[in-house]
């Protein structure tokens, strides 16, 4: 299990990396390497050129300001997990990161790498969708933003041109008092989830649901926002019956199938996890009398 030959480039400026990416045929970008390195070892990925981003300064910033969170693509998962600012402003992200792989992989793995690898069950992709993230993309010719909903093109395929790379993501923060929950069912601790669910709820002054986000991971190529369930919840007073009814929307989703889990099981798991995520998220809201 040794990688095939490749030429190795480790630029120390972003512009240089982007120029290489524009110029070189069959090039891959190396971020944290926690997904790409096994693919190289198995010769599933056989790039002629590897462009290592690890020496480029400034790609790993974490900024929480003005209702918005920006995370550089090369920010290590472990740093994000340990960031007190993110824990306070975006607890969904922190909770999900505790379930991403293991300490050793989070020490190297980056948020940009996870987004671009785009595993259907990847926690961070689901979180990005739940938070309506915007992906910042750069190439030698300029930059552009991609809404997370448009980011997955197909199974494990982001909508990036060959000369483009992700440089960061922006997340609009939810107001203080919101409740969030990320929950998943995985076979073992640290495994990719079979299905994951992310819920965010914001109560209004009357204790009704003023804002809601519900997202599933692991059921389709990209994260699945549950618009119908969100609509059912919006403006309503929460109750176990309401959450159960909203969760039952999952019974009709078009879930994928693999050797580990058939579609019917994923649908069932989705229903259970959405209900549990809603209950937990609501319990975590603040400023509402119980």
């Amino acid at each position: 299990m040794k990688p095939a030959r490749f030429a190795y480039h480790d630029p120390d400026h972003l512009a240089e990396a982007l120029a290489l990416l524009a110029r070189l045929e069959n090039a891959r970008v190396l971020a944290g390497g926690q997904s790409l390195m096994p693919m190289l070892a198995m010769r599933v990925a056989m790039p002629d050129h590897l462009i290592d981003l690890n020496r480029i300064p400034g790609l790993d910033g974490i900024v929480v300001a003005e209702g918005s969170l920006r995370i550089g693509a090369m920010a290590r998962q472990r740093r994000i997990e340990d960031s007190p600012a993110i824990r306070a402003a975006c607890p969904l992200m922190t909770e999900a990161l505790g379930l991403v792989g293991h300490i050793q992989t989070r020490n190297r793995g980056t948020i940009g790498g996870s987004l671009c690898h785009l595993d259907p069950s990847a926690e961070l992709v689901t979180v990005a969708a739940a938070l309506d993230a915007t992906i910042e993309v750069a190439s030698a010719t300029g930059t552009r933003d991609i809404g997370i909903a448009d980011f997955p093109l197909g199974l494990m395929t982001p909508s990036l041109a060959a000369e483009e790379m992700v440089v960061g993501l922006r997340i609009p923060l939810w107001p203080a008092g919101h409740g969030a929950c990320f929950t998943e069912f995985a076979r073992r601790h640290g495994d990719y989830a079979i299905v994951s669910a992310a819920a965010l709820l914001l109560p209004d002054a009357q204790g009704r649901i003023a804002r809601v986000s519900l997202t599933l991971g692991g059921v389709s190529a990209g994260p699945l926002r549950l618009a119908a369930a969100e609509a059912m919840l919006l403006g309503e007073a929460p109750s176990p019956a309401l959450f159960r009814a909203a969760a039952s929307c999952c019974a009709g989703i078009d879930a994928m199938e693999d050797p580990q889990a058939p579609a019917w099981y994923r649908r069932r798991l989705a229903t259970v996890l959405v209900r549990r995520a809603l209950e937990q998220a609501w319990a975590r809201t603040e400023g509402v009398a119980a």
Partner: protein
Amino acid sequence: MSESRHIALHVNGERREAETPVRQHLADFLRGTLGLTGTHLGCEHGVCGACTVLVDGRAVRACLMLAVQAAGRAVTTIEGLAAADGTLHPLQQAFCDHHGLQCGFCTPGILATLVEYLAENPDPGAEDLRIALSGNICRCTGYDSIVAAALAAARALRGEAA
């Protein structure tokens, strides 16, 4: 772009320089090029944790990092854990005392993981330790003795009687 590079790094406190093929991962570099065979390879696809080493104090999978990426970094392997006079690191001593190893193949990676974890969490609970260890597979012990050893090492590192 040449297929190999000359790199310099610190390994177990010593400056080392060597040529490495760019496609060689850090574990093969440590084992093959530097002869530090205490770091083991169990899967080479980032799941088993046997190859875990410390890079700048952080536990990482040495099969998921290219050797060239370690240039300029400080790497600590199992060979660098004991004191210069040969005295075992408290984790090493605790693993011997508690039968925390059987075949010993996964042990170096487990110790690397625990060195970082106990530095950040000096007084962990057994359940926290199990989560911290979940990225290291051991096929021999069933883990109980490893958790017991880690708890004992944590006590020793805190200066308490084991």
